[in-house]
Every structure is written in C-alpha cells, then in structure tokens.
C-alpha cells in the first residue's frame, strides 16, 4: 500500500487550490466525526487499469434485471470465459451505489455470490470476492451488512494459499469490521482474532499490511477496551508478532509498520494491560524504532514518515506512565541518550512538515524528562535548550508544553538551573510574558519562580530587562495575580 500509494498518484487534473480546498473539507469532516466518536475509514482496493472499452471513469448502473442476468450467467454459464466476464461486468457495475442497492434488493443474490466465492474456479472466486469488496466499502449500512453471510468464508480463506486473495479478504473484513458493533459481534465468535493471529505469520508484505489495517479497525472499535482487547487480543500471540514486525532493520516494511504501530497505539491507550506489553519488550522495540525513524528522516526526508512516527510516539509516551516502568528500575532503554537526540530530529521534522504533531513529540519529551535526572541532563549536555526555545512561537499549546519541559529540568535544582540559564532563556521567557494566553503566562511564571529560587543571578538579569513591566500587565488576571505578586516581591526584595 505504502509504495503503491506513492507510485500510483493520478496526474493532477484540477487546480492545486481546489485540491487543498477538498482536503480541508475532508479534514473538517474527519474532525467532526472524531468529536462525535464516529471516526471510521474504509479502504478500497480497486484495479484502476483502464477497462476494455477505454472508458475508465464512467460506471453504468445495473438494474435488478441486469444484475440477475449476470449472476445467472456467472453461476450457470457453460463457458468459463462467459461466466468470468459476467462476474467482471457485475463487479464493475457494483462500483455504483445504485447498482449496490439493486443487488441487495434482489432475492438470493448474496447467496449466489457466496456460492461463486466458494466455487472451485479460481477466477470466479476472485471476481466474487471483488464484488463483495465493493459492497463492503459502501457507506450504506444496509449494503455492507448484506455481506454478513459471507464472513465465515472470508475468515476461512484467511488461512488459504493465495496471498492476493487473502489480501482482498482482509480489506473486505476490515471494511465490515468498522460497520457496526453488530457486525463485530458476529465476527468475534466466528473466530476473527485467531484467524488473524494465524495470518500474521504470513511472509507476504501485502497480506501483512492488509491484516494490520483490519486489525487496527477492530482495535479502534468502541467496545474494544472491554470486549476485544483483554482476552481475545492480549490472550493471543498477536502482541508478540506485532512487536516483531516493528523491529527496525532491513526487514522492516514501512507500510506494514504503520498499520501495526497504530494497532499497538489502540491497545496501549486503552490501558488494559500495558505491563504485559512491556514484558514482551514493547518499550525496547519502540525505542529502537524511534532511533531508526530519526536516522531515516536524516537520510531520506521521506514524506509519510510522520504516519509511523505519530503512533510510535504515542505508545512510548503512554507506556512510560506504567508503574512497572519505575519498579523495573531505570533500564538502559529508558535512559539511552540517543532517544533524546532522535526525538529532537523528529521535532525538527514536524516543525517543517507537520507542525500539528509537535504536541505529540513534546508529550514524549515531558514523559522522558519529568522523573528522570538523566534525561534532563541529556537535554542540557546535548545543547537542546536553544532548539527547544525555537519552538515557543509555534502555538499556545506548544508554548505551554515547552515551558513545562523547561520546568521539569529547572525543578531538579541549582545544578540544572545553572546550565539552563546559559543561552537565550530569559528573552524567550519575557516574550512569553507578553502573550495573552493565561496558561502560557502561568507556566512562564512557574519557570521564573524556579529560576529565581535556584539561580539568584536570574533576578538581576530579569530586572535589567524590564521584567517587572512584563509582569505588570497580568497583575489583575485572576488565575495569575497571586503568582505575579509573589514574583514581584522576590524580584524587588529577594
């Protein structure tokens, strides 16, 4: 999928602005869907080679009679070629929603299609599966749910021998999975998780990517934390295999890794049993993957790496909050300075390519530094304070997070503040005091307090650079006034 995406971009026929506009619309729709907890996405596999007539884009709607005709011919035709052509015609017609409606209205149509799916003719099986796939992709629930009689067969075929066929079945199942809880309530007892656990051992990249997609959709389901993850998923061998597929090295496939990284994210953020994942080596694997990603970014600047970086960052950040991490003592992976270096390479990449992901990177930075003198020291010794300060102007959310990380460092005492104090910290801080956002200012005040406490010369420098004036404008703000007043006193009287 990954490379195919990059390799099959259609030539741009409409203007760039129009494309951007469409993308913004899509984004807005997705945001709304997410807020309503309805964020689902189906995937469509379609042979986009031009058809025989050379038409390409125009899809004729098939009426019920025509659908019936094609089905009959496919089922009972004497010539194999005729049967195949009939199914191909049906499949093309099913690209249109109206044909889909006509299909499901026709009595016995799904039964016939399932019969073709389970016939002993490879080409008929494939075309029947493609028809099912088109139906599964429909936004109309009635159409997608009409595919339910086929699911037991799709699952059976997952342990078959044709990787292309398996791939198709997986994407079809993935589409059905997101359809509704009712559908999932059928798929689970039918054994979808064990079938997937068997599938994950496939050597075929396309199969693995399709499996990762389908599994990610299953894990994203609303009821997953209670009904799917605890016993089915965590009780299977899926977690270990997932982590294997995320191991960096020559065998790592980006498209596959993206899907399974998202799977892992849905599991970890469900907070079911993250300790188990840690014993399987999740933190170790993800840490190495982070290093690998940073190295890759430096080498290739591949667009799309953020698709993998995002779930990796989320998983590590959430896993670091597990109590077991503390009781394990500070393991090497959790103190490896290279993780800090890698994270900053990622932050720089985000700043250039995807600024909306900066908060996610900074979240990890917070979780690395909060309770770790070692990582705070790395931040200082690797000269990363100045680059960090360069992120301050990006947005209020980013400002608050940067200031929080700086506070993480400063609160560890004089040795840290002394190092922190070098460089452009004060001017940046004064700039933050000029901002109107209360949370940004509040966090700046906390940092100032720590600096005044542990680094006495900070007070003088503050006064000299008109710090009091910067404070003054906030003395009436409810959430800030106590702290403003306290700092004022400290600055004037020590």
């Amino acid at each position, binding site marked *: 999928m990954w490379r195919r995406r990059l390799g099959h971009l259609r030539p741009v026929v409409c203007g760039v602005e129009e494309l951007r506009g469409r993308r913004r619309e899509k984004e807005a729709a997705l*945001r709304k869907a997410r807020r309503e907890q309805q964020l689902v996405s189906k995937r469509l596999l379609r042979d986009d080679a031009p058809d025989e007539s050379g038409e390409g884009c125009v899809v004729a709607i098939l009426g019920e009679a025509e659908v019936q005709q094609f089905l009959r011919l496919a089922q009972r035709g004497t010539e194999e070629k005729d049967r195949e052509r009939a199914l191909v015609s049906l499949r093309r017609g099913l690209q249109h929603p109206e044909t889909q409606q006509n299909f499901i209205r026709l009595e016995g149509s799904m039964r016939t299609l399932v019969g073709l799916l389970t016939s002993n003719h490879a080409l008929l099986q494939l075309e029947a599966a493609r028809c099912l796939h088109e139906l599964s992709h429909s936004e109309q629930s009635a159409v997608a749910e009409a595919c339910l009689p086929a699911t037991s067969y799709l699952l059976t075929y997952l342990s*078959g021998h044709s990787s292309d066929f398996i791939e198709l079945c997986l994407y079809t199942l993935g589409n059905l999975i997101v359809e509704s809880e009712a559908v999932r309530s059928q798929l689970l007892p039918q054994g979808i998780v064990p079938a997937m656990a068997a599938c994950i051992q496939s050597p075929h990249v396309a199969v693995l990517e399709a499996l990762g997609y389908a599994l990610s959709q299953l894990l994203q389901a609303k009821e997953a934390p209670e009904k799917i993850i605890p016993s089915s998923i965590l009780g299977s061998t899926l977690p270990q295999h997932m982590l294997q597929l995320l191991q960096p090295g020559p065998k790592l496939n980006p498209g596959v890794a993206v899907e399974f990284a998202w799977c892992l994210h849905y599991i970890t953020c469900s907070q079911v049993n993250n300790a188990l994942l840690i014993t399987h080596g999740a933190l170790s694997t993800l840490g190495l993957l982070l290093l690998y990603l940073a190295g890759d970014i430096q080498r290739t600047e591949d667009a799309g790496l953020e698709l993998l970086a995002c779930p990796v960052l989320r998983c590590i950040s959430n896993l670091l909050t597990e109590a077991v991490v503390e009781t394990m003592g500070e393991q090497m992976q959790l103190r490896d300075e290279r993780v800090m270096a890698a994270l900053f390479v990622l932050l720089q990449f985000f700043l250039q390519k995807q600024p909306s992901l900066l908060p996610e990177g900074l979240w990890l930075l917070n979780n690395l530094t909060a309770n770790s003198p070692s990582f705070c020291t790395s931040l200082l010794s690797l000269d990363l304070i100045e680059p960090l300060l360069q992120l301050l102007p990006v947005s209020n959310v980013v400002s608050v997070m940067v200031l929080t990380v700086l506070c993480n460092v400063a609160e560890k005492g004089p040795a840290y503040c002394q190092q922190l104090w070098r460089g452009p910290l004060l001017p940046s801080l004064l700039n933050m005091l000029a901002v109107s956002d209360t949370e940004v200012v509040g966090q700046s005040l906390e940092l100032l307090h720590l600096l005044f406490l542990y680094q006495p010369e900070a007070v003088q420098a503050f006064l000299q650079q008109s710090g009091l004036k910067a404070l003054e404008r906030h003395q009436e703000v409810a959430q800030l006034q106590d702290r403003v007043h306290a700092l004022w006193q400290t600055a004037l009287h020590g």
Partner: protein
Amino acid sequence: MQLPAVLCARLAGGSAAAEPLPVERDPAAKAAPFRFAARLVRFPREHEFFEDGDVQRHLYLRDVLSQVAEAPERPRRAFPSGHLLDAHILEWHDSLFQILSERQDMYQCLVEGCTEKFKTSKARKDHLVKLHLYPTDFRFDKPQKGRGPAMLRGNENVAAEPLGDDREQSEGEAMEVCCEPTDPSPAPEGGRWTYSHRIPATICFGQGASRGFKSTKKKNKHH
C-alpha cells in the same frame, strides 16, 4: 529549528545514559502560590489531544487506491484453508479416523483456534451455528452424497474435490444431517469423478501447498 551538529554524531553513536547532575530540591519550590509538579502525562483513547494525529491517519486510509493483482493466466485452485484441508484429509481419507471415531470425539471444530471436538458432524454443525454464528449451510462442512474423493494416495498432482459444489448452490439445499464419512469408494454412484483434467491445478497435501493465484504480472508493489 537549528539542531546542534553534535546531535547527528550522538544519534549514530553507542547507547549510553548521561551521568545525571546532582538533584537538590528546595521545599520552597512548591510553596504556594506556585504549584508546578513534574509529572507523567497519560492520554486515554478518546482524548481530544489525539485529534490531529487521528485525522492524518484517516486521511491516509481514505486517500489510497491500490491495484489488485490481475487474474492469473493459469488459475490454480486453492483449497479453502490449511486448517480445513487438514480436517478434510483426516475425516475423509484416514481409515484410522473411522476406527477412533467410534470411541472418542473426533470431529474438530472448523474455526481456527477453537479446540472443541465432537462425536458427530451434526454435533459439530450445531456448535458452529450456535457458538460461532456460522451459517447453517456452511459449504465447507457438507458431507459428500455418495461421492468419493479423487485418488489421493501417493499422487500429489491431483486436485481435491471441493467439499462444496458450485453447481448445487442454486438449489439452496439444507445441510445433510449426520452423514458420517464412509471409506472412499472407487466408483461413486451417480456422482462425478473428480479428476482434474478440467482444472490444471495442483494441490500438495501436507508440506508446501502451492499458491492459489500465481500472478504473472510483475509486481512492483512489493519490496
């Protein structure tokens, strides 16, 4: 954002932790009105913090169109699944199976991962339908009606008869109840021989099953 030159070198270097500077906290640091405390932050699934990244993820999912491999020139038939193949061989072609099934539950559940076994195929069917929500006419569990399988012993290049016959699908027949497999008969009565002359497929029983759809199209999508 300017990263220090030393960073690249550090990334390429060995694993090492920084020797931490001494930590020395003054209680006044947390004195009111100041309230900062360094703490780990965790976000649950639906938190709005994840909105941006989630939207990017879904844009990626939706924007991709891909090609399915073209139909192969010489189609090879694939048995539905390895699991079913094993079950089929065992139930239909193993005479030991007949003997053992008289004494113990030998019909294994067809669902991958389910370890249940049953005395009869009807009992298994009931289990499939009730527990696994399988269709009552699941095609890969149909007993053969007086029809023996193709020659199998010793000859690897013969297709197995599929348990479901596509010609029968239009009649919508219900599943036969309780038809224990008999020894494979050499000449099925009124049934069809199942030689593979129409289907050039080969199935290897046991190790190394052949691929079902060997595409002749050069794939540039895998790497």
